[in-house]
């Protein structure tokens, strides 16, 4: 049996990648299972997905705690999550990053493989959706499934969900990523990963009825206002660059921003100035502001 854990963000397609890997392994005569673990379901939030493959029927319905392989769809997660947690000795971490594997210090006795899956996806698909590219990298780095099987898996899962033409494109992306994937032995971590403590109150400490007020715990701030610590801008692919000279202060971007990240910069006498400021701590890079701006004062850049 081998077990895989996918780290991604909501919207990156980690779940479909895990499913396509299961389908790929199934096409080679295995039994295979894939399942997600969602936190709060929304675009950009960290998500986990798992694939479990065996030559015989799999009965275990638990999550994967000691994976053989880990796939990371977004290298901004490397700082937030201990992606190697529970990874078996000799295991492989496959990371979507522009860095070389030697540049990542993820631990010893493991193999690290990297590929610029975002670059491949932008090139082949015209969109930063990396879930197919990363599967090509997975096949190359682990050898656990063949590239042929990965293509079958993509055609099955992507094809049935979003159409055969797009699935074929995704197969091309996977193949391109396969060719560009490089591996190296893992380097020791420079410092141990500092695991963020989790607030786990017992039955006496837990607020009755879940009616929590804002409080400080060893896990940080809990309850109303906790987003002040939980900055969500880190999952951006594209960043809005504002040219305030072109801004006419129409406020359309302010109206349309789904995250409330845009503020109008006032004059000294508190009247509106021709300009905006974007709170990059929370901006997800959705690009709606740039799309709505009538004077093209906002441009999205990677």
């Amino acid at each position, binding site marked *: 049996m081998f077990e895989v854990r996918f780290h991604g963000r909501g919207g990156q397609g980690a779940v479909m990648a895990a499913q396509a890997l299961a*389908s790929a392994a*199934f096409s080679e005569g295995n*039994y295979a299972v*894939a*399942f997600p673990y*969602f936190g709060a379901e929304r675009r950009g939030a960290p998500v986990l997905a798992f694939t479990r493959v065996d030559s015989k029927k799999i*009965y275990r*319905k*638990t999550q994967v705690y000691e994976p053989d392989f880990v796939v990371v769809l977004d290298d901004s997660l490397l700082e937030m999550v201990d992606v190697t947690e529970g990874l078996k000795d000799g295991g492989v971490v496959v990371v979507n990053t522009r860095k070389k594997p030697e540049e990542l210090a993820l631990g010893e006795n493991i193999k690290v493989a990297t590929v610029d899956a975002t670059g491949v996806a932008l090139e082949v698909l015209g969109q930063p959706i990396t879930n197919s590219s990363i599967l090509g990298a997975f096949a190359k780095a682990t050898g656990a499934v063949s590239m042929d099987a990965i293509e079958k898996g993509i055609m099955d899962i992507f094809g049935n969900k979003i159409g055969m033409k797009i699935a074929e494109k995704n197969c091309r992306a996977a193949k391109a990523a396969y060719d560009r994937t490089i591996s190296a032995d893992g380097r020791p971590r420079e410092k141990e990963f500092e695991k963020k403590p989790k607030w786990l109150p017992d039955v006496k400490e837990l607020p009755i009825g*879940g009616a929590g007020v804002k409080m400080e715990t060893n896990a940080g701030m809990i309850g109303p206002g906790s987003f002040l610590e939980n900055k969500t801008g880190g999952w951006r692919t594209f960043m809005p660059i504002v040219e305030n000279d072109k801004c006419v202060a129409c406020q359309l971007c302010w109206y349309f921003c789904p995250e409330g990240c845009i503020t109008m910069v006032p004059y000294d006498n508190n009247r509106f100035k021709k300009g905006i400021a974007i709170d990059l701590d929370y901006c997800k890079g959705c690009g709606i502001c740039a799309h709505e701006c009538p004077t093209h004062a906002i441009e999205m850049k990677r």
Partner: protein
Amino acid sequence: MKRVVTGNYAAAFAAMRARVNVVAAFPITPQTFIVEHISEFVNDGIMDCEFIRVESEHSAMSATVSASATGARAFTATASQGLALMHEILFTASGMRLPIVMPVVNRTLAAPIGIWAEMNDVMPERDAGWILAFVEDNQEVHDMVLQAYRIAEDNRVLLPMMVNLDAFILSHTVEPVDLMEPEDADRFLPSYKPEHAYLDPERPMGVGIFTPPEYIQEERYQTHAAMEGSKQVIKEVNDEFAKMFGRDYGGLVEEYRMDDAEVALLTLGTVTSTAREVVDNLRAEGKKVGLVKVRFLRPYPTDEIRSVASRVKAIGIYDRAISYGVGGPAYIEARSALYGHTDIPISNYLAGIGGRDVMLSDIEFMFNDLLKNAESGKVRKELVWINTRGVEQ
């Protein structure tokens, strides 16, 4: 054709193969994909049914009841809050003896709000007059939806049926499923020919009408007798399905490694699947443990559970829900069935509430606890909260 699909897909696909005439449903996580897949099948022209988009689950069940009362084969699906909103009409469906089939993706009923697996949504509906089946993997989701129509539409039964599957653990998990070919499905499940209720302008009739006390008690007895009678039908349908397709689920219960077992754990839903692995491991250590998969809570497999109790020294019941102040609903059912029939220790294990992962070590704990009970002949603890912070297990 074997494909790697989710539990939700398996349910939607089986509804298509059952050639249901009417689907009325409202989406709710984690059931949403059942409705989405069906709307795609209809849009793609591969499923010929009336797909009714409604504004709530109350309306979904109302429309499904109405459709079934015209003699159509009707289908819907829901979860959690959606099932609670249907509550009133669930009694209409069973009271009118309409063979509706409804997958319920078991999810936490708020508050606190949660989207993960818990059976506290279906447990309050045990008295609604529906047959309640519980499944353990996606193949069983698919097979049970098809079997459900055979059971529900049988003239000895004529009751609606829920097929309960655990949120995410099945609904969003892909695994290989043998998806039935249309001709095989048609061979197993002929079209529905209603005899008791068929709203038709040519032959006017009233169903579910105003009924004074002179009649309702007899109506209730009829429904109770039908529920009792469904036990035989469930077994027959299981056997016929097994003969045709080679997949035998054992009927009301399935016993796993119960030969010479000294203790038995009764499970519902997906925990059964993980427990099989634990039983194999403990058997390899020489521990005489066995597993009983309870596939139905309504009708309750009273005889089967009594037979299990007569063969073991201790019995345990797993629950993914709690009836406050008493214990797990599956435990309450088992204890009631066993009253006066056994004096072996009976204990209840709560785990996986709110979707918490039920680990192999959790199930191992249950079996080892049962072995201790068997040895002492006493219940160490009646209600055991597994893995609950601040509570001694």
